[in-house]
């Protein structure tokens, strides 16, 4: 411990502090005894600037604070969002961003849906105010989103058995549900698919909900390991939460068939588990809102209580508006009311009430028959583009690859993403040699692929698959 000497200079203003404390953050404890200026500090590499202070006619020097966040290290870049940042930095003309799942047009431009522009114009003309929403969000949005998910005629809606709270897109809705699980089911764990969207684990970790994985992806078939999935769900303790992707599984693009969904539902009921659906791509997978919700509706029709998180990031292109919802389907309207009140209590100390802009857009689009119809066409168009890109990529791969490898999984998978089966080294090759940006798990976002680039991509994949290990 070094002791410091202080100058009695009466420097008037303080400029900057570069004092360094030791890592453990032992803070400077200064003894300001007027009669004897006697300080003890724990520090190394002293480089402290002092400030003289006048107080009641006595000039004293005061050592400046050291940061108590000295030991904060740099966080690793986000594996998904970090990809776009790396892509931006790349100057190569052939570069391709197949990282984050944001839809692009054939010209690889971001796409603002026509219905969204129209809705925003309506909102601008009406001159809507910007008052706080209630904690649970915009009522018109909550009604619309539950109906979209479950079908307007669904008995559970009529019976008021659905607790819906507007959330900050899919992430925020998942987090609310996770916080609810932690508070009311503190001993329960969540089963998540292997693999799953990277942020799922972060969400449950930060919400302090324990999780374990169930088998899902079979690298041998580049398809679903259904037997593994079922046996892992059966092996879990009764009353676990099972996180399921409603459609267009992220990152694999591999969905259970409807027969398989029935069996999954059977097992979940047998084990008294609680289904927890993440529905981020309704309408985007098949092009049909109803079809993409069929897994959720199946479980609801079985009379099960379940959680559903929704997002409008992709299907309405409202990414940055952060609009989604958490729905809890309960066995009674009384339970739904109580659950909703507790979800609100979790939201209040997180952000008080949700942002209004995206909610109004959704409510306007869904609430106007003409806009709603136009939205369905736009969604079919977007899903259609993805399908045609899959087809072209498959054709290119099949033609160019002489090894006889079966690339048909590209056609079988659904939604924005495709799990190529490439491993980390091969994915790195895609980026380093071919300037194709994707996530390390081998996932490519077809939404970022144009027909004209399919050939180039096929070459890159073939090279990486066969020549790198």
């Amino acid at each position: 411990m070094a002791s410091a000497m202080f100058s009695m200079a009466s420097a008037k203003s303080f400029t900057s502090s570069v004092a360094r404390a030791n890592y453990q953050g032992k803070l400077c404890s200064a003894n300001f005894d007027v009669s004897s200026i006697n300080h003890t500090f724990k520090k190394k590499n002293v480089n402290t600037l002092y400030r003289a202070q006048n107080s009641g006619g006595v000039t004293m020097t005061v050592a400046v604070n050291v940061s108590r966040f000295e030991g904060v290290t740099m966080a690793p870049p986000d594996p998904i969002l970090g990809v776009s940042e790396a892509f931006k930095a790349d100057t190569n003309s052939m570069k391709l961003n197949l990282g984050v799942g944001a839809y692009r047009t054939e010209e690889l431009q971001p796409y603002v849906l026509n219905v969204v522009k129209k809705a925003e114009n309506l909102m601008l003309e009406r001159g809507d105010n910007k008052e706080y929403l209630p904690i649970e969000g915009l009522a018109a949005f909550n009604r619309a989103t539950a109906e979209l998910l479950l079908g307007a005629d669904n008995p559970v809606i009529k019976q008021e058995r659905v607790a819906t709270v507007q959330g900050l897109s899919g992430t925020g809705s998942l987090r609310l549900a996770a916080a609810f699980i932690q508070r009311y089911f503190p001993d329960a764990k969540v089963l998540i698919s292997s693999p799953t969207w990277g942020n799922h684990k972060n969400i449950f970790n930060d919400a302090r909900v324990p999780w374990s994985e169930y088998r899902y992806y079979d690298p041998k078939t580049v398809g679903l390991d259904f037997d593994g999935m079922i046996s892992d769900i059966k092996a879990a303790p009764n009353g676990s939460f099972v996180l399921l992707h409603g459609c267009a599984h992220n990152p694999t693009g591999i969905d259970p068939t409807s027969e398989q969904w029935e069996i999954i539902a059977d097992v979940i009921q047998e084990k008294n588990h609680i289904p927890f659906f993440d529905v981020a791509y309704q309408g985007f997978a098949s092009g049909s809102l109803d079809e993409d919700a069929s897994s959720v509706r199946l479980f609801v029709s079985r009379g099960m209580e379940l959680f559903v998180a929704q997002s409008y990031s992709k299907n309405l292109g409202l990414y940055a508006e952060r609009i989604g919802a958490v729905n809890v389907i309960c066995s009674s309207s009384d339970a739904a009311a109580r659950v909703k009140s507790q979800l609100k209590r979790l939201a209040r100390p997180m952000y008080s009430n949700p942002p209004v802009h995206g909610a109004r857009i959704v409510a306007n689009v869904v609430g106007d028959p003409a806009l709603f119809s136009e939205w369905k066409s736009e969604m079919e168009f977007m899903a259609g583009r993805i399908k045609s890109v899959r087809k072209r990529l498959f054709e290119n791969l099949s033609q160019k690859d002489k090894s006889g490898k079966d690339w048909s999984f590209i056609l079988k998978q659904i939604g924005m993403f495709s799990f190529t089966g490439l491993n980390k080294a091969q994915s790195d090759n895609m980026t380093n040699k071919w300037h194709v940006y994707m996530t390390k798990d081998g996932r490519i976002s077809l939404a970022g692929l144009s027909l004209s680039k399919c050939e180039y991509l096929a070459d890159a994949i073939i090279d990486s698959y066969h020549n790198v290990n």
Partner: protein
Amino acid sequence: MAGKMVFSCTICRKSAGNDLRFMSSWWNHVEPAPKDPILGVTEAFLADTSPNKVNVGVGAYRDDKGKPVVLECVRQAERRISGNEKMEYLPMGGSVKMVEETLKLAYGENSDLIKDKRIAGVQALSGTGACRLFADFQKRFRPESQIYIPTPTWANHLNIWRDAQVPQRTFHYYHPESRGLDFAALMDDVKNAPNGSFFLLHACAHNPTGVDPSEEQWKEISYQFKAKNHFAFFDMAYQGFASGDPERDARAIRIFLEDGHMIGCAQSYAKNMGLYGQRVGCLSIVCEDEKQAVAVKSQLQQIARPMYSNPPVHGALLVSTILSDPDLKKLWLKEVKVMADRIIGMRTALRESLEKLGSPLSWEHITNQIGMFCYSGMSPEQVDRLTQEFHIYMTRNGRISMAGVTTGNVGYLANAIHEVSFVGGQKLYLAIKVTSLFSFL
């Protein structure tokens, strides 16, 4: 309908093979949550059908007709950005432009800290989101720490640090007898807290009391913080709204910065730009150097990612459009002053009305206090009477949102307050009225 339900239950039972499952629910143990004390007031107000009803509950600004206001600078900004935004995800730390402009407001246009890149700043979900990010960060990187919270404070502060699992302690703030600041007790608490404690301070326009330390008092607080090596976290939700001048309202923060404190700060555009429902704000933490600021920012992003991934764009675009255009910024400053002046005018009007009614009680505090709120000093029972008898809605701690007071309702409000605050009732009131009449003869 009942028949349908029975039918579907029978189907369920057959496929489930577990009857008990459908007689109960997973959520039996979930109790109904108590109503939020602040937001619940507006709900009750909306449900009231009385034509005389007055909402002085939630802190949202109203014009003199009692209508919500969208600032003209905001409307102009909206027209400008309409159709332009691509709505692509913002980075996890939010809009860089918005954060830059926002830091200038708090730290000063020419702040060295900004020039030296020593501030870790991220866009947050208004003031609540900024406080929550900080609370979670505090928990993660100073897990042994507590937060000292003033008594009283905005109710949600307690929820935020509680849900972040940071233990709380309180420090003296409000002095009920004088309806002012309990400075001596505050300083004692600062001195008695263990060195290196974390304190939550309201930068200006304290919510709910409206009682702010004077500049001299702030300097003493800052000095004592230095001596104790405390960490100052400022919640600044009303910059511009308190005095009408954003620079003046940031004075407390600037005093601390001049003294070399490395503060944390939550900022909100809910009130001063009327962007309530857009949820736009900023969390900043002053660091030792640029390297540390980059590290701290990356960790804040790490906390945001599993909460909401990245913050909403619309409000941020409005803020950055307004603040980076000199004309729009000038317009904004003008409009903020108009709002603050109207509030100050209503404070005067309310106090004068009460004094004219002959109330023997002192109502000085109404004009001494600053910002959106007035801590009236009324008891919960008196507040209940105001609601039940006069359809006046406010929070039970006696907090009046001056933003809800208009020239149209100030008389009615004064009358009602006079009625319920008056001990002894009608007779005494008449006696005093008569006495004061006589004083003119």
